[in-house]
């Protein structure tokens, strides 16, 4: 079971999965970020939303009534990277193979699924590709000496954003954000939820 939202996009109504909604919103916000003039920004976003709503409609049928994260990811590929849309970057997908573009850099996030306090050490572990336990021990030792570790931890907690969307979680682990990876990630998540659910029932 998944939570869905009802949205009005380009004057059409859609049911959209929660994760797909978040991804779409994040994408539109990133496009907005490239345009400083308010009137211009509204016009452009409006036109883009109309186009996305057309593309969504083409994907729906009697047998498919909900927009999923896969739909959103594919439409983002069709519409293009916000930097390319704004025209300050050349789109490389034409001349370079996909994996080169997709081999995304890791980004530092706080890991909500691997947390003891704020998920800072879990996120750092994913970023540096080392066991978070080692970082936790280091922070603990540094905290004993003049509280330095504690201070660093608090600053990172405030400054580093939490990985909320699937795309962010993939970026945190250094996996490229593409449709197949997201599909795999969502399936893995689903399996782990199913397992914990069964585990709970046995108790």
């Amino acid at each position, binding site marked *: 079971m998944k939570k869905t939202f009802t949205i009005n996009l380009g004057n059409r109504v859609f049911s959209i999965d929660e994760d797909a909604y978040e991804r779409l919103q994040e994408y539109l916000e990133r496009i907005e970020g490239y345009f400083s003039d308010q009137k211009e920004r509204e016009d452009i976003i409006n036109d883009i939303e109309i*186009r996305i709503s057309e593309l969504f409609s083409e994907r729906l049928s009697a047998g498919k009534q909900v927009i999923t994260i896969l739909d959103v990811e594919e439409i983002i590929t069709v519409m293009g990277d916000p930097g*390319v849309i704004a025209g300050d*970057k050349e789109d490389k997908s034409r001349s370079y193979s996909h994996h080169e573009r997709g081999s995304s850099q890791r980004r530092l996030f706080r890991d909500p699924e691997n947390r003891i306090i704020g998920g800072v050490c879990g996120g750092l572990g994913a970023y540096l590709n080392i066991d978070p336990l080692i970082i936790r021990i280091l922070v603990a030792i540094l905290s004993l000496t003049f509280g330095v570790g504690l201070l660093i931890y608090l600053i990172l907690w405030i400054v580093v954003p939490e990985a909320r969307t699937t795309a962010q979680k993939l970026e945190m682990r250094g996996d490229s954000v593409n449709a197949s990876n997201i599909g795999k990630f969502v399936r893995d998540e689903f399996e782990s939820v199913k397992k914990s659910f069964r585990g709970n029932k046995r108790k």
Partner: protein
Amino acid sequence: MDFDNVKAQMRKGVLEFCILSILSKGDAYATDILNKLKESELIVVEGTLYPLLTRQKNAGLLSYRWEESTQGPPRKYYALTERGKEVLKELETTWRELIDAVESVIDKNP
């Protein structure tokens, strides 16, 4: 030197010219324009079209109106303004001159 930027600017300039040219043959809504540009492989990702349309509109080259559609909500139809027609003529001249100039340079420097 950033050649990616040079390429992006080149393509953008040509795209603006082509949008005006498409609209000179009749009013169209964004998706019509998009399909024509895609047919001729002038556009890679769809999103690049919209900022160009908005900027041309704000520069007074295009106007738009809403028209009812049988397949969904009303559509935004773009049309060339008088100023747009003038600019298109100038661009056509510039385009021909550029092609001639570039080709003569390329021919002389094999």
